[in-house]
């Protein structure tokens, strides 16, 4: 090897070391923001309000599931909150349970206010999420029964419902869970969520209700019985990974019935799919909003949640996303079709099958595992 070649190589090696050093330093730089104690004013909290400029210099990160939903949340509540409070709000997503756990476990929490599911926040109240501070959050306007655990408030409400093709079934449509599972009287493909690891409360409940279990005897769920019932129509099930996929199956006519979320059902019908909802024993579901345990600024995070719960904010959220508001004073301006898919009306209150979120919080892992195993078989 010649000297000149070696000399040329030495600076390269030096440069490499330098790059490494820079990388190492950059990676270990401390995160921004320390817990500033904020003054949110005095007196009992009022949903939908925040003291002007109370959070100047505070930075929070709001995390949700993306898409129209998160855009709606930002426009209806989060951005106006930032403007009024002076806080800087970043957004991130989609919500990822493993990331929440990783942040909390490592003590480096960058997701402050998180939109999650009611079962997950109930299951991890205390270990991943902190209790809602009711001296900051006004929970008095939340519809009765909608707040399902101490660490969260509902983010909105929707329903797990069956929709069916009105052209196919005509004058004799399916009316009950038993009809959904009756492929002789109601032939056709059914869409059901089928992503391993995901199981909404309601899927198994519907199966045991169809199998003749009395509504007050559904819990504790006999999971073997539920899966046997599901197996009885497995050949006619089209599994979907996401809500978007379920909606597409409905709109493209690949299925004649679907067990899906009311928001997706509404959008499919609005887009012209000849489908109608079956409201008998529909299952109310909700996303929840919670603050991660170890969040840098819990007070400011709670203040955001309090603002989110306001009547106006909820009305706007409903107008933008078609999910139902969770403030009893909310008066969203909607067309008739959107109104017919609202789940927080007296009419819907009567025909709902109430899901036991507390039971799910205790049994979620067993149910999800059983369903994932059934799916993989």
């Amino acid at each position, binding site marked *: *090897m010649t000297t000149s070649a*070696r000399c040329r*190589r*030495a600076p*390269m*090696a*030096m440069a*490499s*070391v330098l*790059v*490494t050093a820079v*990388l*190492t330093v950059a*990676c270990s730089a401390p995160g921004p923001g320390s817990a500033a104690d904020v003054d949110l004013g005095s007196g009992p909290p009022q949903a939908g309000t925040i003291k002007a400029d109370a959070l100047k210099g505070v930075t929070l990160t709001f995390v949700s599931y993306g898409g129209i939903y998160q855009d709606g949340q930002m426009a209806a509540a989060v951005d106006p909150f930032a403007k009024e409070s002076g806080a800087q709000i970043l957004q991130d997503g989609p919500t*990822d*349970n*493993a990331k929440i*756990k990783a942040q909390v476990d490592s003590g480096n929490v960058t997701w402050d206010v998180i939109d999650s599911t009611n079962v997950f926040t109930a299951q991890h109240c205390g270990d991943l999420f902190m209790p809602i501070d009711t001296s900051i959050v006004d929970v008095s306007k939340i519809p009765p029964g909608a707040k399902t655990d101490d660490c969260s408030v509902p983010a909105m409400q929707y329903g797990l419902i069956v929709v069916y093709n009105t052209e196919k079934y005509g004058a004799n449509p399916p009316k009950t869970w038993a009809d959904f599972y009756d492929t002789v009287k109601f032939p056709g493909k059914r869409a059901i969520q*089928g*992503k*391993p*690891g*995901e199981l909404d409360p309601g899927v198994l409940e519907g199966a045991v209700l169809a199998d003749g279990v009395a509504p007050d005897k559904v819990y504790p769920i006999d999971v073997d019985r539920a899966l046997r019932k599901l197996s009885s129509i497995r050949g006619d099930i*089209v*599994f979907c*990974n996401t809500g978007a996929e379920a909606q597409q199956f409905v709109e*493209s006519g*690949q299925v004649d019935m679907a067990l899906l979320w009311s928001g997706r059902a509404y959008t499919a019908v609005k887009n012209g799919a000849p489908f109608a909802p079956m409201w008998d024993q529909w299952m109310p579901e909700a996303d929840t909003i919670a603050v991660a345990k170890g969040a840098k600024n819990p007070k400011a995070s709670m203040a955001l949640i309090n603002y989110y719960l306001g009547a106006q904010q909820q009305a706007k959220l409903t107008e933008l996303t078609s999910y139902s508001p969770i403030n009893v004073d909310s008066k969203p301006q909607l067309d008739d079709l959107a109104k017919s898919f609202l789940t927080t009306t007296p009419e819907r209150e009567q025909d709902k099958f109430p899901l036991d979120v507390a039971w799910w919080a205790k049994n979620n*892992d067993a149910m*999800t*595992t059983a369903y*994932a*195993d059934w*799916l*993989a*078989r």
Partner: protein
Amino acid sequence: MTVVDVLSGRDTARQTPAETANTKRRRRGAIGLLSPSLILVLGVFVAPLAIMLWRAFTDPEVGFGNFTWYLTDAVQHDVLIRTFTTALIVTVVCLVVGYPFAYAMVAFGPKVRAVLTLLILVPFWTSLMVRTFAWVILLQDNGPVHSVFKFVGLEQVRLIRTNLGVVIGMSQILLPFMVLPLYAVMVSIDRRLVMASASLGARPLTSFRRIWVPLSMPGVGAGCLMVFISSLGFYVTPALLGSPNNSLISQQIYVQVNSLLQWGKGGAMGVVLLILTFAVLAVLMLALRRAAREEQHE
């Protein structure tokens, strides 16, 4: 130098005494040059791997609980077998499609080669998500492929949400990993050997079988290895093109890690997959070493 050269111990460069004087300085230079990649490998591969291993044995309690669970669970057993079977099928499909393709790349003129290279590289540069969604659109019920099948009276053949669909999608996505190593080996084969065998009276098929195929074997080994091992960890493609009852181990790991927050179980699954992958590597390495030795004896 290919993966196979390393594995089969073909890298036989030895230091001469004259070079030893420079060794120290060169080593320092080498460490300097390698340090960014070393930090990267240590930071984002070795450290997480160690944490995963640690969790597999300690989360939620110390012991072999996670492994006992994984190795005795009937469903997980089926999924593991399915994962390896699918990887094997995809590897065979890639080899059957990729070998003639790579051969055509070296056998015909530069124009054909340019076109074929483009055909391999353009999909290679396209995002995996995009390609998977393209396959969803192509294979879905009433999609283009299904319509053609319908037209010729094969309406009952379903592609989306079947194992066949998963294999088609994965094979197309992994094909470049087969073709590129094959091409790299084939392009360096001395074609005069083939001519020589012909001049000695071998028929084209005989010279192909006895000259070309053995000389291209390192490429076959490298290609198969890349495709097989990549297949084992595929997540998006089987999730989107398959039905849940075609789910592979990566989807089951997702269930444990993401849905159930059972990181110990997820870790154990990762460890088992890693060990099995190493086992495959070891078997292949032994086979290649033996082949190389026999080659030398001849």
